[in-house]
Each structure stands twice: as C-alpha cells, then as structure tokens.
C-alpha cells in the first residue's frame, strides 16, 4: 500500500535555498562531508570485498599479499571444494526450506491477525492489541520458551525454527497500520455486493496490499535465513543444521567440514574455505539486497511514524 503515513509526506528536492552562493568555507565543508561519508561507506563495504576477494584468490597469493580485494589470479578451488561437500549443500537446503515455509506460515498468520485487529468495531481489539505490544516489552525468556517447545515435541524438528517465531509483534503492528490505511468505503461497497468478511479480505484487502505484504514477507524471509538462536537451542542433529550454524562451526569453532575431508582429493587451505563458506551463506542476501532494499526502508518507516 503506497498511501501510508510514511510516504504521504511530500518528497523534497535537496534544499534549493541553502548555499545559493557557495562560499569557500561551504565548499570545503561539502568536500569534507563527501570524504567522511565515502569513508563510512568504504568501512561498510571493505570487509565484504576482502572476504569475497580472498575467497577467489590462490593460497599462494593469500600468504604473500596482506590485504586482498581483487585477486591477481582467480581460482574457484575453494568453492569447488565447499560445494562438493554434502554438508554445505544440505545446510543451504535446510535454510531454504525454513525460509520458504516459514515466510509463508508467518505471512498467513500475521496478515489474518493484522486484518482482524485493524477493524475498530472488533470487540476485544484493545485488549488483544495490548497483549501483543506487551510481548515486545517483556517475555518469558529463553528457558521457559525452550521448555514449551520441548513439551510440544518440537525439539530437533525444523518446525521449531518456524513456529516459536511465527508472528513478529512488530511486523504485526506494521501490517495492521497498512490495513488501517485502506479506506473503509471500499470494503463497505464490497459488503453491499454480498461479500463476507473473509471475502472482503481475500478479494479486496489482499490484492490492494500486495506491496506491503511483500515487504513484510521480506522482513520474515531475512530473519528466517538468518535464524541462529532457535537452531542452537532446538536442533540437535547436524543433518538438520541451517547454514548459520554450519557457518559458525566451520569458521569459529573450526570443525564441521572435517567429516567430509575426503570428499575431494586436494583440500584447499582452511582460510579460503572459511571465506568461501561465508560468501556462500551470504550470497542469497547479497543477490536479493538491491531489489528489496527500498521495500525495507518503506517498511521500517511505517513502524516508526506515529498515527
């Protein structure tokens, strides 16, 4: 939905009135400002470039050169090795499953509940809203949640990565405000034409809010792909590890791939394997990022603007 609080504000060109006749002082400020911002952007970017560059470099170059961003000779050895091990592929599969199924479940539950709560005439709405917001301020915490998940028999099931985090209260509140922005008259018209509550939701509200649902879906997808805490709490068997757990095992604990050491004949040095695994685990986000960034900004704003 584009008519949200955040986007209703008229977008402004950079102030035309300021600095019509730039004095030397202002010019200097502009230059310094650009340098500072450029430096900041570089600090954000360089770790990624360093890891990607090093993962493509030969072992010899890695030991010879201190800081690799663009390797002199490219090699895919580390990737060939990483992708030849069943471990990485399996973990990527687990993460993909959790991301796809989880996003679907979360969107379904969140949008249904958000729509119901967006109706001012729904009795008990205030109480439910309060109970939802309260969970953002206080929670049972790690141990009681762990016990509940255990008692439900979800330990070591991939559902334990999805169900305990199926609805994010923050996303729910954002989506509720999306739905509230839809004019009531549209729904009334549909109702006069004989639509039921569910019919209005499916035929009128959902098609109108596809963009915002996609935004929230992306929020969920990112958090499912990045799932880590749930996995170390609830997943025991290594064949059900999502990629984040495997990444920690390989890079920080420095085990995990050892079991597959005989997968290929030549084992590249540990350093480039680590980097290649980091890149493989990051790649889905990196590829999606340019497309989803603007939706994210929109979503983040709706939550932060009151009204």
């Amino acid at each position: 939905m584009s008519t949200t609080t955040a986007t209703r504000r008229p977008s402004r060109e950079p102030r035309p009135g300021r600095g019509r006749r730039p004095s030397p002082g202002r010019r200097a400020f502009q230059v310094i400002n650009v340098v500072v911002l450029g430096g900041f952007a570089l600090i954000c970017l360089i770790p990624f470039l360093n890891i990607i560059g090093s993962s493509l470099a030969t072992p010899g170059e890695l030991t010879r050169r201190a800081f690799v961003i663009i390797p002199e000779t490219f090699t895919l050895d580390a990737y060939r090795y990483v992708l030849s091990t069943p471990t990485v592929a399996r973990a990527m599969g687990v993460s993909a499953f959790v991301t796809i199924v989880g996003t679907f479940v979360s969107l379904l539950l969140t949008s249904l509940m958000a729509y119901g709560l967006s109706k001012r005439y729904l009795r008990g709405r205030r109480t439910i809203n309060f109970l939802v917001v309260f969970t953002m301020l206080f929670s049972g915490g790690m141990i009681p949640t762990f016990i509940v998940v255990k008692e439900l028999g979800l330990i070591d099931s991939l559902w334990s990565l999805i169900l305990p985090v199926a609805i994010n209260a923050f996303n729910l509140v954002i989506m509720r405000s999306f739905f509230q922005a839809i004019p009531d008259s549209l729904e009334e018209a549909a109702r006069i034409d004989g639509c039921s509550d569910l019919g209005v939701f499916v035929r009128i509200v959902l098609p109108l809010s596809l963009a915002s649902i996609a935004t929230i879906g992306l929020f969920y997808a990112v958090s499912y792909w990045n799932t880590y805490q749930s996995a170390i709490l609830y997943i025991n068997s290594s064949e059900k590890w999502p990629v984040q757990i495997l990444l920690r095992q390989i890079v920080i604990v420095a085990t995990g791939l050892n079991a597959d050491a005989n997968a290929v004949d030549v084992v590249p040095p540990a350093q480039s394997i680590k980097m290649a695994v980091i890149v493989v685990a990051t790649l889905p986000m990196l590829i999606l990022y340019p497309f989803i960034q603007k939706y994210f900004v929109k979503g983040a704003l709706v939550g932060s603007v009151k009204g």
Partner: protein
Amino acid sequence: MPMLTPSAPSSASAVPAAGPADAVPPGLAKDLDQRRKGSANPLWKHRALYLMILPGIAYFLVFKYLPMGGLVIAFQNYLPFLGFTGSEWVGLDHFVRLFSEDTFFLLLRNTLVISALMLLFAFPMPIVLALLLNEVRTKVLKKTVQTIVYLPHFMSWVIIVSIFYVMLSIDGGSINNLIVAAGGEPVRFLTDPDWLRPMYVFQEIWRATGWGTIVYLAAITSVDEQLYEAAELDGAGRLRQTWHITLPAIRPAIIIMLILSIGDIMELGFEHMFLVMNSLNREVAEIFDTYVYTAGIQNGQLSYASAVGLFKGLVGLVLVMLANRLAKKFGEEGVY
C-alpha cells in the same frame, strides 16, 4: 501441525451458539440474523474476523504467554519429568543464590559497561550520519551511500562475526597482516579480553549505524523549508541551522530511540555476544543474556537460569517504563 491443537477448544468458545443458521451461506446468514434479532450479537456477527485472528491469538498464548507463565519455575526446583505442577517450590532461593554469587557482579559489570559504551558511542552514530547525509546535495551520491551503509543490517550475526573473525585472526587475518606489514606486532583481537569490548561495540556500530539513520532521515524531511530560509536571511550559517532547526526537529525521534535503548540496557542480545565469546575472554564477555544459556541449557539448571532471565526481564521492563515516564515529564511524547 502440533500448533493447531491448543487452538481447537478455544475456536469453539469464540463462536457461540452455532445454530441452525450454519446451513445457510454466510452472507445470507448475517442478514437473517440481523432481521431476527434486530442488532445481532457482535461476536457472532464478526465470527469470520474472530476466526481469522484465532490462529494468531493461539500463537501468542502458546509461544509468548505460556512461557511467561512458565516463569514460575524460577521459584521452583523444576524437573522436566515432574512438570510445572509437580516440581518442588523453593520460593526466592534462586534469586538469593544469584545475588549472593560473585558471578552476579561480574555479569552486572560486563552488561552495564557494554551498555554504557553502546549509549556513548553507538547511539549517536546514526544521528551524526543522518545529519551528514542530509547535507549531501547530489542525489545519486546520497542514494549510493545509503544503499551501502544499509547492507550490514541484513547480515546475520553469524555472518558478521565470521567475517571479522577471519579478518582479525592472528594467523593470516588481513588486519593483522596489515599491522605486521606496518612493522607492528600481531594483535590477539579475538581472544584478548581487553579487545572484546571495543570489538563488540565496533561490530554493533558497523551493523546498525546505516540502518539507524532511516528514522532520523524521515524526521528531517518533515522540517519546514521556510525555517531554513528564514535562518539564512538572519545570517545563520550551516552549523547553526543544523543546531537550531534540524536537531530540534528530530529531537522526538532521538528521545524515542533513547527510551528504547535504555530499555535494552540489561538486554544486549544473546547472539552477538555468544558468537564473540570464548574461553579466553569469557570473564569480560559473559552477560546476562549469555549466562542464561550457559546456566540453563549447557549446565541444565533450568530453574536458576529462569530466575536470571526473569530478573533481567523485570529490570528491563522497569527501565523502559521509567525512561518513558521521564520523557513525558520533559514534555516529550514517549513511546507507550
């Protein structure tokens, strides 16, 4: 799906008096209902809406409020096979133990020191960056910088800590390579307790600063252009315009973010610290969030760990409410 089980009985209670109207199509049923009773029972009239929010309510009850109730084990010696009801009650024993142990002061110190560093260094960064971005005239440049600095926000802590782990490592990490190339001694960033806090705060800044600007940039765009023009006529330079117009305009946003940060003083988050913690830096790294895991999951002291978690959560709740109250007292809007 096991999740559906608990919702089954409540679905029956939310739809009372499912009478003969069940047989007719929903739209018609509503009409009939209204005609029969005049104004229909609102619960029945909006039964579809209630059915729609039901799975969500079930989620919050099972995965949010059931664990909250489960906090009673903080006052028990909880044993899984005895359950919530069968375990022995011990009153405040776990809390007494927590407060009388040296660990408590270690945890409190570590948590508060890092929180203070975060408030001091990480909190102002997005404000500064937003102000700088606001001064950029070239649209393409601004967009490019924004796109780049938002990126780390989408990376998991595992990825971020892994990237820095490889870069900071003592054998062959790029940063240590550079230090050695410049004639220095390699630095044990990853294991030296003195480096833990700077590293932690730097990684937090690295990840969150760009994304944090969004709120402030939005607040800045709502400033009335005429204010700047008037200030310019009065001879105010850029710095004074920023100080007297832009900063006051984003003050509500700053206050709200500050309230939220203060509420999180006790809750730094589990994942990041857990990932950078190791046996060599544990003494400065262990915070309440990680200690709950260490005591509860690794050492199996479920009740004691719950008590630690409850203490942390209650202090957090009180802090948020205090900060909110304070903000309102000073004429700000507050969050809740």
